[in-house]
Structure formats: C-alpha cells, structure tokens
C-alpha cells in the first residue's frame, strides 16, 4: 500500500514511467504474439513435412506424374504408404501476395493417411470424407469461416472468380465436416477425396491432355510415408533410396524441409525479439531514471528509516519492491493492451482467414515475467544507492 501511495505522490512522473514500461511490454506482447503465430504455422509444417517425404517430378520437368509411379515407390525399402497428392487454389484469379497466412487451397486427402502423419486434425463438426467418396468436402476452420460454410452446406469449388472466363469449370461439393482450429495449414485447406482431386486436376490440364490420359492416371506429386512414428533420419534414408532407385522422381529429405521451416522461424523470431527488446530497454531506462529521482527526493525518508532501525537490506528490499511494482503495473497494462489489440486485429482478419497473432500462455508468462524482472533490474542501482546512504547525511539533506 505504501508503494502505491508513493507512486501516487508523483502522478505525472509515475504515469510517464509506467507508460515507458507499457510501451515496452506492449511491443513485446504484440511482436511476440506475431512470432508465436508464425511459429505455430511453422510448427505445423515441421510436423507435416517431418513425418512424410514429398516426391515430385525431377528438376526441370513439369509437375505431372503418372500415378503408376506409386507402385515404383512402394518397391523402395522402408516405404509403407504412397498417396498421390494434388493441390489447387480454392479461390483462383485473385492476386497472390506474400502474407502471414496460408492461402486457401483445395488438397487431396485420404483418411488412411491419418495413421501416418504426425500432424493430427480433429473435427469440430461433421465427419471425415471416405477414400472414394465423391462430391464431399471437409473444410478447415479458417476457410469455413472465410467462405461462411457449415456442415450440410453446398459449395462450388474452386470458387468462381468475379472475372471468370467462359471456360471456367468448378464442381459442387457438400460440406460434410469442419475441422477444429490448428493454427497452421489445415485451417486454410478444403479436403477432397483423391478421385475428386483427380477430377479437379484434370480440369487444370490443357484440353489435349484431358481425354487421352485420363484423370485417374496422373498425379501432381506423391506423399510417401515410412512406418508410423519413423524418425526423420529413417525418412531421410528412404528419401535417399528413392532418389537412387527411381527415375523421373525427386524426393525431398524431411530434414531439409524441416530445416527450411526452422531457419525461417528463427529469423522472424530474432527480428521481432530484437524490436521488442529495444522497446524494453527504453522502458527499463525510464524506471532507472524514476527510481534515481525517487531516491534523491527521499533521502530524508531513508535516513529516518535507518534511524528507527532499518538495516541496509530493509531499505534495499523496499526500493526494489517499489521498482518491481512499477514494472508489474506497466507490464500488466502493456500486456492487456497488447492482448486487446491482437484480438481486435485477429477478429478483423478472421473474415478473410488472416489471423496475425497468437497469445500463448508462454508469451503471457514471458511478458509478465519480463515486466517484473525489468522493474527489479532497473531498480537495483537506485535501491543500492538508497540502502548505502549514511543515515546522518540522509537525515540532514534539505528537501
């Protein structure tokens, strides 16, 4: 209570100091929430690509492969399952720009794949599609929100652009399931069965290819799995064997994919952390300044406390506690402002499936922990100065 009253005695100065901390922790919260969101996205990629091997056409070749290559892949030692893979823009025609979100996509999906992949999804509503079901789609939470669809609704995929040409083709699907939010790729995906994906793939081919080859004979790429729970090293070895033993195919080692994700995340986290740290240092300096002023103004109080029996340690603790409370008040406010702003922006972006921030319990602990540590650290020097004052000198100081 005494600490709060002391803070209230110099309202303007305390307010400015607290504002310094507010800005620092606000920056830490918002930047951190952006990094957490980005890391959650990357984490999904790490789990997905860390538990499967992506196999495409060899370098320099068009991404069109005969489905029969799956049999060739199954011959490679260690390969347990192979799924032809297809993906298409769910909303073609729009400008593709770099963003923090993953663009809405239609992807092929086989329920059998669930047993192999480390990236697990669960259903908020409805059910999964069957391996050979036709005209059914499962939507990720983000794309369902974006397209305003729920279980039982009809949807034409891909979505017809406003400026679609006369030869634009799409197909009607029934939404049979909506996934829970994963904060990563599946949120933006519309999952269709492999036969439906082949039908959509056929629509993308030049007219001359469509009839003769047959949609069921072509794949964009393959997703290959080892035994469930295989380590990245085991999958890397399988990828190496695929590259050595097959022709016209190129397998990407899971460790290469994972490293690419991680390095991207590390750079982003470093940039956001550096920005937040800069703001924190400025906030910390304002606490140092305030506490030095407080100590200077309260020399006589310190002298009196020592005269009536306070040890050096008592005075040190009291001033450290005051600095810590300033840090905590500023940090709490900064964190709250950060949470409010990130939620408002996320809410505004949710309509277009573009969420930028993720406030996690870890981030909350870091923000509040930092504010306390910042206040305490900034208060150390002034508190030592106060605690070491000679009582007579302090008592005789003129106000």
């Amino acid at each position: 209570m005494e600490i709060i009253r002391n803070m209230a005695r110099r309202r303007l100065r305390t307010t400015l100091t607290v504002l310094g901390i507010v800005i620092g922790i606000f920056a830490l919260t918002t930047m951190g929430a952006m990094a957490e969101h980005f890391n959650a996205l990357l984490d999904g990629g790490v789990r997905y690509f860390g538990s499967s091997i992506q196999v495409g056409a060899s370098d320099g070749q068009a991404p069109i492969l005969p489905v029969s290559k799956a049999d060739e892949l199954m011959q490679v030692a260690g390969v347990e399952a192979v799924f032809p893979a297809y993906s298409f823009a769910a909303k073609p025609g729009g400008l593709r720009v770099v963003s923090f979100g993953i663009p809405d996509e239609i992807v092929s999906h086989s329920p059998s794949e669930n047993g192999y992949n480390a990236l697990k999804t669960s259903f908020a509503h409805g059910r999964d599609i069957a391996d050979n079901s036709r005209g059914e789609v499962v939507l990720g939470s983000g794309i369902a929100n974006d397209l305003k669809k729920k279980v039982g609704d009809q949807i034409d995929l891909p979505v017809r652009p406003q400026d679609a040409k006369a030869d634009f083709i799409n197909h009607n699907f029934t939404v049979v399931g909506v996934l829970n939010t994963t904060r990563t790729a599946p949120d933006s995906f519309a999952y269709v069965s492999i036969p439906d994906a082949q039908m959509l793939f056929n629509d993308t081919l030049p007219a001359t290819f469509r009839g003769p080859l047959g949609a069921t004979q072509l794949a964009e790429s393959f997703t290959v799995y080892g035994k469930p729970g295989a380590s990245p090293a085991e999958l890397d070895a399988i990828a190496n064997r695929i590259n050595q033993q097959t022709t016209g195919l190129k397998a990407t080692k899971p460790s290469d994919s994972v490293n690419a994700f991680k390095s991207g995340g590390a750079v982003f986290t470093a940039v956001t952390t550096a920005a937040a740290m800069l703001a924190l240092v400025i906030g910390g300096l304002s606490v140092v300044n305030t506490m030095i002023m407080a100590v200077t103004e309260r020399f006589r109080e310190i002298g009196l406390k020592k005269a009536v029996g306070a040890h050096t340690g008592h005075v040190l603790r009291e001033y450290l506690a005051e600095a810590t409370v300033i840090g905590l008040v500023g940090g709490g406010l900064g964190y709250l402002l950060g949470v409010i702003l990130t939620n408002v922006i996320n809410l505004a972006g949710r309509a277009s499936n573009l969420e930028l921030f993720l406030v996690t319990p870890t981030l909350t602990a870091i923000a509040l922990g930092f504010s306390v540590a910042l206040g305490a650290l900034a208060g150390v020097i002034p508190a030592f100065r106060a605690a070491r004052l000679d009582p007579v000198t302090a008592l005789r100081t003129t106000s």
Partner: protein
Amino acid sequence: MANIELVDLTKHYRQGRSLVRALDGVSLEIEAGEFVSVVGRSGSGKTTLLDLIGLLLRPTGGRVLIDGVDTASMRDNQRADERGQRIGFIFQEYNLLPALNVLENVMLPLRYRKSRGKDGRARALELLEAVGLTDRIKHRPDELSGGQQQRVAIARALINRPAMVLGDEPTGSVDTQTSQELVGLMRWLNREENVTFVIVTHDLELAARADRMIQLKDGRVMADEPVLHAA
C-alpha cells in the same frame, strides 16, 4: 531506562584541507530517567553529540557506553537494531513519511523489529491517545499542523518502549505556545514512561524545564549543571 556514558569522545571531520573538531574530548554521564538539555551556539557540537549517542555516527575517538555496553564494536546492523529497540528520535522537521497516515507513521519502527509482538497497534493507539491525536489516526502528515506532526513524531519515538529518546531541536519549528505544550508532553512522558530524554535545543525555555543542562562550546563541555526549578 538507559545510563549513557561518554568517555573522552571526539569527532573530527575533514573539510577541504582543514580539520573540524566537532567534538573534542567530551566525557559525561547521563543517568537513567534524566531529562537533559544540551545547549550551545550553532557549530558547538550539539547535534554531533546527539548523533553519537544515537549511534548514527561513529566517533573518531573515545567511547559511547549504553548501560555499560561499549558500542564501538557493534556492526552497522547491530547499531540499527539498537536504535530500533532502545533509542527513539525526534527531529526538528518531524520527518514523518508523507505516504503513511498518522497510525502507520507511529508504527513505522515496528516494521524493522525482529520480533514485532502482537500489541504494536494497541501500543500506537495508546500513545496517540497520550499525545491527544486519537481523532487523527487516519490523517496524512500534510493534513496536520506542525505541533500535531511533532506529537506524532513523539509517539513514534516511544513505540518500541525505548530506553532513551533523543530530540534534535524538537520545538524548533513550532510557535511558542505549541512549544510549551510539547515540552510539557515530553516531561510527562519522561515520568510516565520512565524514559531518559536528551534534548538538543536553542530554546532556553525548554532547557530551563530540563533536570540538567549541558552547555557545549567548540566541541567541549563548558557547563554541566542541574536546573533549579521554582517550587
């Protein structure tokens, strides 16, 4: 009550190149329960003497004995404990903490005691009643007059049932009438609480109401004699 013994006490300061002999070979004894005034001109060494008795300063030479215990070997924290438990201070400028109310100011020294006891609040209320401030316990210092603030300071000085109270110009910032009231209060507490009072003052009326008056000049005791009170 404390018996205070000063033996050949000196305190020298360096001020630039010159040496200031603030106290120069003072020896005296103050009996437990006495009400002693220390008078002298500015710079005579009164406040230095009080700071040495109050263990706020360490002497350059000589010894300060409280109840026969030599304080020279005490470490800083021991001296702080001794101040907190056995010595009360009253200052000219009251030195109340503005962030605390009257009751909290009186109870401040309890905060730093190792064993606080359970009767701290009751003791503070008892003292505030004794100094006539029962109706002001929730007030802040800036809501009180100078005399009232000094009464709070007197109550604070007595909260730990000290053996002695040291006053540095306790009536220096109040008017004559308030000064007389404060002196009366201190004398009454001296008897009621059996506490030794050593008061440094320029106020000759206050000095005249003490049991004994010590006069300092240039850091030396010039006179030390009992005060004769009219019957």
